[in-house]
Structures are given as C-alpha cells and as structure tokens.
C-alpha cells in the first residue's frame, strides 16, 4: 500500500494533486509497485508522460495486451 489509505478510490481523471500524500516520492513507490504487481516495466520515456491516473491505466493495459 503506497498511500496508507485503505478506502482510497480513484478515477481516471484524477491527478497526483487530488490524492493526499501523493508526492514525487510516493509516485516512484507507486510506479515500482505497479510494475511489480503486473510484471511489467515502464521505460524512462513512459514514466513521465503520465498526466493522470487514466494515462497510467492505459499504459498498463497496453503493456498487458502486448504480451
């Protein structure tokens, strides 16, 4: 758990500003956790193009469907 909040609910249009405690540091933790959970790897290029939760989800979907 990255944000220490079990009741957290997210929507695709949410950004880091909408989630308490989502700062640059926990962002790295989140990305690494996502990578581990889904067994995927984001490139440095992809890493910074995520503007909101939706971008991250799309990228995960894309990676999973490519396998």
């Amino acid at each position, binding site marked *: 758990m990255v944000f220490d909040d079990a009741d957290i609910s997210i929507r695709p249009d949410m950004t880091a500003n909408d989630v308490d*405690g989502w700062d640059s540091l926990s962002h790295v933790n989140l990305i690494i956790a996502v990578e581990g959970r889904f067994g995927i790897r984001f490139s440095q290029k992809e890493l910074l193009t995520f503007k909101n939760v939706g971008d991250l989800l799309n990228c995960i979907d894309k990676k999973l469907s490519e396998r």
Partner: protein
Amino acid sequence: MLFSSPIFLFLFLPIVLAGYWLVGSRLRGLFLLGSSIFFYAWGEGRYVVLLLVSIAVNYCFGLLAARFRNSSLGRIVIWIAIFANLGALAWYKYAAFFASNINLFLISLGAPLLKLQNQHLPLGISFFTFQAIAYVVDVYREEISPQKGVARFALFMALFPKLAAGPIIRFDEVADDLHGRKPDLELFVSGVRRFVIGLGKKVLIADTIAKTSDQIFAIPGHGLTTAVAWLGIVCYTLQLYFDFSGYSDMAIGLGRMFGFRIRENFNYPYIARSLTDFWRRWHISLSTWFRDYLFIPLSYALMTETIRRKIAEGRYKTNYRSVLSIFVVFTLCGLWHGAGYGFIAWGMMHGVILGIESLWLGKTMKKWAIPLQHAYLLMVITLSWVLFRSPGVKSAATYVKTMAGFAGSAGSQHSLALYTNTELLLALFAAIIGTTPFAASIAGKFNNGRLRRFAPFAEMVFIVLVVLASFASLASSTFSPFIYQQF
C-alpha cells in the same frame, strides 16, 4: 537591462512593444528575436556569442535526439547534450570554486596550484542551460517534436521576458504561442496589470525592505543583538520573496504583452504547511525541473531487482533510496543557486528536512493544529534563509546563535530602533498581507458583491497608484539588481 530600470521602462519596452505589434504578423517572431538578442547584448556584450552558440548547439541536439530516438545512439546524444550544457555552466559558474577546493588539497601535497580567475557569470546562464536540457530530453522522450525552425527555436531560448532569471519555460508551454501570435487585447491588458504588480512588489516592497536587511547582514557577527538578528532575517525572508516573485510577475506579464502564456512560478509559498508543500509553491519552474529531469530518473535508476520485488510484495515500507535521491537532488539544487558552501549547506538542510518529512514527520504533522504547522514551516524556512543570505556557513552559524539568544559581547550598540522606521514598517505590513491570498480574496468579494460596478474603476485606480509610486521611488533610488539574476 533591469525590468525596473528607467531605460527599460521608458525606452526599450515601449519601442519593442510598438514595433512588435506594428510589423506584419510574419515578421513578429523575428522582430522579437532581434530585440531579445539586443536585450542580452546590451548588458552582456560579447557574451551574447555564448547565448547564440547555445542556441545553435541545442537546436542540433534537438534534431539529433529525434533522429536517434529509437536507437542506442539516442542515449549518447542525450548524454552529450547534458554534458555540453552543464559543462558551460560549470566553467562560468563553478570553475573558480572547484579550483579553490582542489588547491586546498594541492597545498597539503605541496604541489603547484591551479590558477583560475573568477569568470564573469553570463546573465541567465543557469536558466537557459536548464531550459535547453529539458528541451532535448523532452524531444528524446517523445513528449514534444523538435522545433525545425531555427528562428522559432532561438526565440524559445532567448525570449527576453524570461531570459535573465526565468521562469525556466518548457517547450510545450509556449509551442503554440511560438507559432501564431494574434493580437489578444485581454491577454495584453492582463499582462500590463501583472507587470505593474510585479514592479510594485520589487520597487516598493522588496527594495524598501532590502535597505534594512542589507544593513543588518553587514553587521559583523559579534555586534548583533537577538532582536536585530530576528528583524534582519524576517526582512530578508520577505525581501527574497517579493524580489523574486515580483520579477516573475514582471516576466509573466511581459510574456503576455507579447502573446506568450508563461506558467506560474509561485503559489503563496509562505502559507505552506510543510516543507514538502513549500516546494510545490516556491520557484515552481525550478522544483519541477529537478523533479522531472533529476529526481525521477535518479530514484528509478537506484532501484534494484530485490528492492522492486520487496516493494511489490509490500515488504519494503520505506523507500530509503528515494529519500537518498531527495537529499542528492536538493544538495545540487543548493549548488545551482551559487558556487559556495552556504548554498550547498542550504540545499542539504532542505534535503534532510524533506527526507524526515517523508519518513514520518509529514504524517505526524497532519495531526497537529494548523497554526502549529504554519509556525513549523515559517521557522524552518526562515532559518534556512540565514544560510542562503550569509556570506558563509560560519557566519550563518554565528547569526543563528545570536537569534537563539547567545549574542556576542558587544551586542548592545545596535538597538532595534536604529533599524526601524515608518517606511520599513509600512513595507513589512504590506509584505505580510501580500504573502497571503488575502488581497485576492478581497478583490474577489468586491467583484461579486453589491459594489461590483465600481470594481474595474477601483482596480484601475490601484494600478495607476502603484505605477506612480513605483516611478517616484525609482527616480530617487540607486541600482538594485534582482537577487535571482545573480544565480
């Protein structure tokens, strides 16, 4: 040419503005580019060559980064671009500092010493090199397409409103504005308004308060008293914010007058409730640069397979490597401000406190009463500015000791009354109000309240008063450069 100098306000700006909007739309970009190069050459003379070389070289790096995006050569291009830009910065800004440190080592060996004079620091080099690095990396990351037009790229680099001290603009921020600049009266007027507010912040508030803080920081350590030391650092804290945010307002305002929408650089930093929060509000264009081009790549590079697995399994609660990255990033952020141990120590202090906040303090603080959170931030930031302002770490330590009540022996000769006068108190009062969103909220109420039909009139009166007061103050003042132009 300072934004707050008469030659800029009464000659350069009116001529360039008139010329810019009078020439045909196809020539506008070239006209503004020429004016920007002239602006740089006016103050910097032959160093304009450095700016032109930087433009030419980074233009090529952009094209190469796009060409070799998907081959192994791409990474090489990126590294060369980063080294070239940082190399130029290192030579002009840090060579003498590094040499003096190497000499300390050479002395102990009895070896011959390096002879390096302090270089002239070319205006804005800290800002335009960072802008160029971001551009080339963004092209490589496929976030933007490279700018093929040389003149447009040159304008992106040299645009005079942000040339001297930022904001560090990103290419995507102004990409559209670089193409079509149609006259937009509303944008223009908002630019003028913004520029005037920035001018007032600089001339009426920052420069007035600076007189006192400069005097107090010039007192040798043993002559300070506790009360005077506190007055000095409170003054400097407010001076720095009004100097730099005033400059940024002027840059953003000038940008709008020429049809460029530059992003905000400040968001009421002193009302933050933690240092983490502060860095989202202070010099935003620099903090986001460090986040995107140093912190994220660095902490990602530090992840090993074992740690990745632990994080995925939830067994690695605290990401110490990212905390380490924070420390490294802020140490370098300190160094960016200048070649000196004071700035490095300032950056380290920020790195350590940000690390502590992310480890546990941040969560604990959320349970504190809100005024206590504000008090904590103001305390941390004020103490850190002592390092930022003092000539060295040692004098900063003496200064903090005096603030804590351990004053030197000869303290009594400088009483508080010597440094306070009505002018200062007025400026401090305005400054404290100005660090909060209070004025904006009053204006908002006015605009929506019963008296709203008077709002435009009241605003105009306010702007005119600020202009008149600033001009009157400029007429009698001496040269006072912006603090961040020296970084």
